[in-house]
């Protein structure tokens, strides 16, 4: 998890900031410019060098307002010095000339590292890391080797000066450089396609500048390889094009800053009864579509607006900013880490949203408790069902088995006894059979075996067969439904039929089981007197918790002389 420091104060770290380097860059630029004039270097070339190095230094200062971009700030300053260092080739001292020669391409590698590690100083990917290392090897490494072989009178390291060897070294730098420029171009395009929200806003201009610069580098390298000549004009053009990189960095930061007024609009918008959610409004105000709001409950858990539990992210790809009210954390915003670069924006949203988020948190807490109550009711019903099943099983395996054995034994004894004893034994057997029948009805009411074994339709058909009046059953339920739904639907039919028999004075009844793609509807109708609403509800009222736990609805329609219709609907996906 990335922790958040919302108030950024650059003054505290002034000593370690590159800000002190600014006068140095300016002075070095002026010195190098004087060298160039003295050496009669083209004015455009001197101007391009100064423009690029000073633009880099300026960008390194602008970047300071973003704490996470500190590495980039240093890289920008280093690039400015490396660029001016290369111009030591204009010095009359041979040692300085050699130093300038060695530093000649270093600024390009530094720029590549800057682009491929923005914003936090970490390489975007493995390929990006390899590209950066390759850039240093080709530019700096190549020049160090070149210093030993270049056939120039000013070189202080002429170990093996030879024109053809020097040419080979040049080519060995140029060809890999073409490949590296291509890799950088594709990495930049790929990155631009991936970035979203605040990160895209801040880094978009830089990526565009980097892509253009990489393409320009390809053209210039192609020109050098094709014409086999080192043209000073090409170096001037390269520097002039590269100016768009510091310009892109400054443009991105400015663009991010320009969004701030939208945060104050949030104040107005939060008070309107818009149909959008708090999350959507905050996402728009912060310009981060991926924003999530997690409300903190009293017990330390986090939930979304609907009360569903949320796991806060751990890792660098998401950042978490707390929102407090009265010193207590009420919610956290889970967002793109790039928003950390805009602390003032986040802070203004945080201050504005505090009160509304407090209300939303209370609502989320209530929803979460409701969800919990519903889940707990479901568990209670499930536990009761398991218990019912156990009792049914015990009745069947215990008392019922013994009574059945007793009944058969009495029948056997009656067949062997004399007439008077046989009469007594037969009556005893009848009593036992009556007890068995009552026990069986009781067991069925507790948990119907047929429902468990054969499903809803078979169980409801059996209910209809046992009813003392004609009951028709129509059903399109073919497959099995979840246990709690089957059991609740069965009990609805069972209770409704009991009511028909007891209260309706009906001559017939009908049961309809309809399976829809996302629900099950159970309808029981009769042709009785109707109107006995309170009484009729009493048995069904006992099913209230069971139905609520399943989010089911129950409606009873009974008008005088038009019979009663009991209808239950269960949400239940196929």
């Amino acid at each position: 998890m990335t922790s958040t420091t919302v108030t950024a104060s650059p003054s505290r770290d002034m000593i370690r900031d590159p800000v002190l380097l600014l006068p140095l860059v300016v002075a070095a630029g002026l010195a190098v410019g004087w060298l160039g004039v003295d050496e009669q270097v083209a004015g455009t070339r001197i101007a391009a060098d100064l423009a690029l190095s000073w633009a880099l230094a300026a960008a390194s200062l602008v970047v300071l307002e973003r704490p996470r971009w500190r590495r980039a700030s240093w890289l920008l300053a280093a690039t400015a010095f490396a660029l001016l260092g290369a111009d030591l080739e204009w010095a009359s001292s041979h040692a300085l000339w050699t130093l300038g020669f060695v530093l000649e391409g270093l600024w390009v590698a530094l720029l590549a590292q800057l682009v491929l590690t923005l914003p936090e100083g970490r390489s975007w990917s493995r390929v990006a890391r390899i590209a950066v290392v390759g850039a240093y090897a080709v530019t700096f490494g190549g020049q160090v080797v070149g210093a030993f072989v270049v056939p120039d009178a000013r070189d202080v390291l002429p170990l093996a000066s030879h024109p053809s060897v020097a040419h080979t070294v040049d080519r060995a730098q140029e060809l890999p450089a073409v490949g590296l420029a291509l890799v950088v171009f594709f990495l930049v395009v790929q990155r631009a396609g991936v970035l979203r929200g605040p990160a895209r806003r801040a880094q978009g201009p830089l990526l565009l500048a980097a892509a253009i610069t990489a393409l320009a580098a390809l053209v210039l390298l192609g020109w050098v390889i094709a014409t086999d000549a080192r043209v000073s004009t090409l170096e001037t053009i390269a520097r002039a094009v590269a100016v768009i990189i510091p310009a892109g960095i400054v443009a991105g930061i400015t663009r991010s800053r320009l969004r701030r007024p939208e945060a104050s609009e949030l104040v107005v918008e939060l008070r309107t009864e818009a149909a959008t959610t708090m999350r959507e409004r905050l996402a728009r105000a912060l310009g981060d579509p991926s924003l999530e709001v997690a409300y903190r409950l009293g017990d330390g858990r986090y939930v979304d607006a609907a009360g569903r539990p949320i796991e806060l992210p751990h890792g660098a790809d998401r950042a978490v900013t707390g929102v407090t009210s009265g010193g207590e954390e009420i919610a956290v915003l889970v967002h793109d880490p790039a928003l950390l670069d805009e602390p003032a924006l986040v802070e203004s949203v945080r201050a504005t949203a505090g009160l509304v988020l407090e209300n939303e948190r209370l609502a989320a807490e209530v929803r979460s408790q409701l969800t919990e109550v519903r889940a707990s009711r479901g568990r209670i019903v499930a536990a009761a069902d398991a218990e019912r099943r156990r009792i049914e099983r015990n009745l069947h395996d215990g008392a019922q088995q013994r009574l059945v054995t007793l009944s058969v034994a009495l029948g056997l004894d009656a067949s062997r006894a004399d007439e008077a004893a046989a009469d007594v034994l037969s009556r005893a057997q009848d009593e036992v059979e009556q007890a068995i029948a009552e026990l069986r009805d009781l067991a069925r009411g507790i948990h119907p075996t047929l429902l468990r074994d054969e499903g809803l339709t078979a169980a409801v058909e059996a209910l209809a067969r046992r009813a003392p009046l004609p009951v028709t059953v129509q059903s399109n339920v073919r497959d099995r439904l979840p246990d709690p739904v089957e059991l609740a639907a069965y009990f609805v039919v069972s209770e409704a039929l009991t009511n028909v028999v007891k209260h309706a004075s009906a001559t017939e009844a009908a049961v309809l089981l309809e399976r829809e793609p996302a629900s099950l509807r159970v309808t029981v109708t009769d042709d009785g007197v109707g109107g006995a609403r309170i009484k009729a509800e009493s048995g069904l009222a006992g099913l209230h918790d069971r139905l609520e736990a399943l989010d089911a609805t129950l409606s009873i329609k009974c008008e005088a002389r038009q019979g009663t219709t009991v209808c239950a609907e269960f949400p239940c996906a196929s």
Partner: protein
Amino acid sequence: MLIVDDHQPFRTVARELLESAGYIVAGEAADAEQALAAVAADCPDAVLLDVQLPDRDGFTVATALAAADGPAVVLISSREADDYGRRVAACGARGFIPKSKLSAATFAALLE
């Protein structure tokens, strides 16, 4: 014939009942495993088979016996046939007697 039921007192009464009616009870079994073994060993003509057995239910045993062209099967249970729906008719048994209604006469009627 063979009596299959996990309740020992019931087996004793059933054996007495059937023997008094002239049937020869070759053996008893307390679960499906024993029942299949006893059928293979004794080759009885008829099996009185309880539906609720500890290891497998009586329908499975009846289906297996019917598939092997085995002895006639009469299912018994302390529940009623209605509690088992279509499975009674589908398992290949000769018939079903609720245990409390078991007598030599009801048994003989199904075997005819």
